[in-house]
């Protein structure tokens, strides 16, 4: 049963990636990163439950928990930034922020 879980995880990760790359709304982009986290959680759990060698271990799950911590803090900061950006430019469009462009 490992392969199906891995494909699912990969699919979720890829969908998150596609969403991140194609959507221009900052919040949705962040949401997509969260989606990518879900893909990773499944993979971690799957490898924990169906390890290639030896009995199932719980390390995967423990790591997933830490992943959650990271995701939470990332979301907090990210969204604070998004709000700030929104207040600056009044729009959530990612294209508004292109100061990195080389003139």
């Amino acid at each position: 049963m490992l392969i199906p879980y891995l494909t699912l995880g990969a699919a979720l990760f890829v969908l998150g990636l596609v969403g991140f790359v194609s959507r221009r709304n900052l919040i949705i982009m962040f949401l997509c990163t969260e989606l990518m986290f879900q893909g990773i959680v499944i993979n971690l759990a799957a490898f924990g439950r169906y390890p290639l060698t030896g009995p199932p271990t719980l390390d995967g799950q423990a790591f997933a928990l830490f992943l959650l911590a990271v995701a939470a803090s990332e979301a907090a900061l990210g969204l604070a930034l998004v709000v700030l950006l929104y207040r600056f430019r009044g729009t959530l469009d990612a294209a508004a922020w292109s100061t990195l462009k080389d003139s």
Partner: protein
Amino acid sequence: MPIVAATSLAQLPDAAAPLIPWYAATLPFWPLIAALAVLLTLITQRGRTQAHKFVVGGVGVAAFLALHLFFVVLGEIQRHQSAEHPASAAAVAADPHTAEAAHDSGHDNHAPAPKTVLRFPLYRWISLGGEHWIDVNFFVDSLAGMMLVTVTFVGLMVVIYAVGYMRDHHGHPEPGYERFFAFLGLFIFSMCMLVLAGNFALLYLGWELVGLCSYLLIGFYYQKPEAAAAAKKAFLVNRIGDFGFALGIFALYMFISPLVQPGENPLDYAVAFKYAAALSPDQCTLVSLLLLCGALGKSAQLPLHVWLPDAMEGPTPVSALIHAATMVTAGVYMVARCGVFFVGSPIALTVVTAIGAATAIFAASMAMAQYDMKRILAYSTISQLAYMFVGLGCGAPDSAIFHLYTHAFFKALLFLCAGSVMHAMGGVIDVRQFSGLRAVLPQTCRLTRIGCLALAGFPLLSGFWSKDEIVHAAFETSPLLGALMLLTALMTAYYTFRMFFLAFGGPTRLPPEAGHHPHESPAIMLRPLAVLAFGAIFAGYLGVRLSASRDGSFLGFLAPGGFFHDYLASSTIIRTAGHEGGAWLMYLSSLVAVTGIVAAWVRYGYAPLFDPDPATFGRAWRWWHAKYYVDECYDRIFVRPLRRLGEACFGADRNLVDGLVNLVAAVPTGVGLALRSLQRGSLQAYGLGMAIGIVALLLWWFASAGGVNAALALAARGSLP
């Protein structure tokens, strides 16, 4: 022509050669000290008008020492001969200027006379690596003695003349008066160094210093662009000759150095002549031809003659001294000095003769079609030098030197007379502008007539004797050459007296520049002229043996081969031509001279306004007048292409090489611009970039290392932790 075994030079005593007395060795430095003294007066601005006193004094001392040296060498020859042939101690002529030099005819000068050389080492100059050195040392033999006397004596006369010449009408010295005398002193110093040099490098030093002085003196009136251009042209043409000369010295070292014992310097005369016999004919030819280049440059022979006529831009004393009597004869002196190499290779001798003959006829023809008095004399000098080269080529170097000696007197005389004419005519020297000056300048006219007669080879004057010997040697080589020489003699007589009659003959006409009444030159100018005239008449008798007339004819009793030749026989020159001059030859050459003079008198006796020559000679005359368009050819063949090449190189330098460099510099900027467009500033683009990066990475990993399967296989083997 029999090649005299050079072994006769073998017993040249070098290390053991006796030393010149120390005071005689200071000879060249007196004019130098005089020149520096004048320079000092220039710097300190005091006593500038006395400049000429220093130089006259310096050259005077040099002349005296030269004379003394002449007799020291003579005494040395006597001692040497008495040591080897006690019986025939040659009688000594008291003074070169006394009329006849009686000579005991018993001595048969065919056997090679013992070589007498005096030397004086000063100090080591340049190291040639290892134990070979170039030293500053003097090498005096009878040739050098003779040359020194000629140079310093004529130099003294010219300097004295210049004191008068370089003053304007009311006797005040012209601007640059001191500079002129300083350069003259420097010139005499360089010429003496050239003659006294003991090795080829020092000869090269004298050679170039003389070139420098001629540059400075020709360009004396530097305000005039033509004078500056003439000076530059003279120096550069001489430099072309020196280029060959330098290569000759290097080649000489290359051939001589393997033969030389340790402790001997290959470039010293004594050593070089000692081992000259060991050189193969080919090597002799190479060295001779290269050295000949230098001679041609300096003595203004055919290919490199273009600078001498332009050198007339300089003040007349300069033309008289440098471009008639001394510097231009350096080439003849060098070829005579290195006779042992030329004799060693028949090719070289024929080249010398050919160039001499060609230049003689070539220059004579040009001289016939000029109107500037000094240019006529300039071409005549080239022609007379060509005579000397023919003498050298025909194995009669002592005749050549004899002609050089006599030519110095009458050519200097003629130039200085032209100078006093110019002085009187307010700087005009074109014979068409004036005529009938015998009334206005009686003394100059008399002196010029003597000079012209000597130059034309009128019998019993010095020119006649020396030219006659060369014509005789030419006949001995080949009758055609002899005939050519006689034809040139005819032309010489013709153009000399054409000039004389145009200037002094006919009604008195004066150019406006001459002022209301042109007066005769001051005494200070005329007295040296008189001395030179005396020399022009009697100098010839030094080379004549007054013996009982062989065939009873009037001239027969004057046979060539007098004191002069015996004196020179003991120098390093090698005479291969015979000595007996046929009496018939003397009659022929006198006849030729007289016909030339009469022809000139017939056509130009009354100084016609319209020159008859162009009509008679037609197109040939135009070529002669335009100096065979040689200058223009050189300009188009060498000068202009070189200049275009320079422009092309400079162009290439700017675009090609710089272009290459800028191209290299452009590469990084180009790449930078290309990459810049990637940074569009949109977040998505960066995300997409990352995604593509991951995909590429994965694909590469899977492709190369077998990807997950390999990992799984590893895991299966339990090697993963």
